[in-house]
């Protein structure tokens, strides 16, 4: 059992999120030079939404890499190159099959950012649950269909989600690079202002609503969430212990009732519900080993 002075699990998660954000963005000279990291490890996709044009990013964003793969598919096929995006699809599948959407709750810098912004005091709103279906629309249309179908004369598609939607790109790359690089500043036009306006809109939503981007827009969350019901990491609720007091809902960063569906695609597996449940009804398992997480409950 944990002592009462032990740090609360939510604090541990926050530290983990901060450390992960820093680890993914550890090339700090980029912020001084206004240039991005160009080392050979940049081709490694991180299982989180972290723009590869962030000045300090060490890895590649899987959503951007996926769009690039789909956007180049028709050209590659026309010239006989066998490049189908298997590396990115396979990597996301491996992460999803192992832990489902757990990276959203523990390592995604943009998810962490949304949780921090949501701490700003304000009236808080609930997002209607049907909004969660929109992220599949963004995935199907902006990440898959448009890059594949709308191509230039050479057969190249664009990264539509990055270009028109992604507020993480604007926050992590657009604002700092334009501020630091005078050459890029000279190219600013309508698209830039559109993306900044969209970022402002999301920022307002983040203050009012818990993780709105993750729940309604994020294509990576949509992909990893599909694995929640069949991954090695699983959540479970003991119906005999659960009294439906909704303490878990109060703490949940994505506003779900875990007892309605323990492995719902909306769950980011932050484990706050495990710590907030006074009755020990919520548990998780990995590789068949079930953990009620005594220390988590004791600390909550």
């Amino acid at each position: 059992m944990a002592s009462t002075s032990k740090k609360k699990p939510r604090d541990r998660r926050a530290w983990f999120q901060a450390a992960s954000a820093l680890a993914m963005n550890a090339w700090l000279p980029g912020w001084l030079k206004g240039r991005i990291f160009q080392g050979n490890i940049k081709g490694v996709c991180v299982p989180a939404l972290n723009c590869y044009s962030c000045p300090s990013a060490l890895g590649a964003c899987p959503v951007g890499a996926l769009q690039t793969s789909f956007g180049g598919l028709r050209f590659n096929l026309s010239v006989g190159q066998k490049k189908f995006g298997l590396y990115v699809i396979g990597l996301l599948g491996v992460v999803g099959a192992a832990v489902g959407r757990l990276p959203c709750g523990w390592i995604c810098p943009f998810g962490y950012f949304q949780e921090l912004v949501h701490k700003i005091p304000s009236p808080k709103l609930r997002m209607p649950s049907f909004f969660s279906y929109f992220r599949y629309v963004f995935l199907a249309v902006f990440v898959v269909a448009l890059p594949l179908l709308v191509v230039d004369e050479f057969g190249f598609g664009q990264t539509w989600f990055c270009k028109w939607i992604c507020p993480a790109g604007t926050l992590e790359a657009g604002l700092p690079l334009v501020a630091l690089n005078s050459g890029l500043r000279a190219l600013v036009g309508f698209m830039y202002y559109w993306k900044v306006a969209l970022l402002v809109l999301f920022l307002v939503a983040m203050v009012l609503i818990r993780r709105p981007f993750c729940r309604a827009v994020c294509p990576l969350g949509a992909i990893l969430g599909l694995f929640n019901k069949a991954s090695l990491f699983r959540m479970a609720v003991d119906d005999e212990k659960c009294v439906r007091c909704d303490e878990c809902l109060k703490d949940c960063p994505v506003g779900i009732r875990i007892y309605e569906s323990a492995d719902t695609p909306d769950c980011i597996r932050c484990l706050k519900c495990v710590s907030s449940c006074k009755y020990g009804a919520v548990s998780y398992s990995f590789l068949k080993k079930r953990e009620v997480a005594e220390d988590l409950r004791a600390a909550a």
Partner: protein
Amino acid sequence: MKRKLPWIMLVLFGGLMAAGLLLGEYKVVLEKAVMVCLDCIGIG
């Protein structure tokens, strides 16, 4: 079957990832990632 499904998926997707790496897709991602993505920053 339900218990085996995650392992089957791990092997399947691990195989896809390995195939992608063998086909040189790491280089495709790397080439994109080391260039400033003008689309991402709203200048594309």
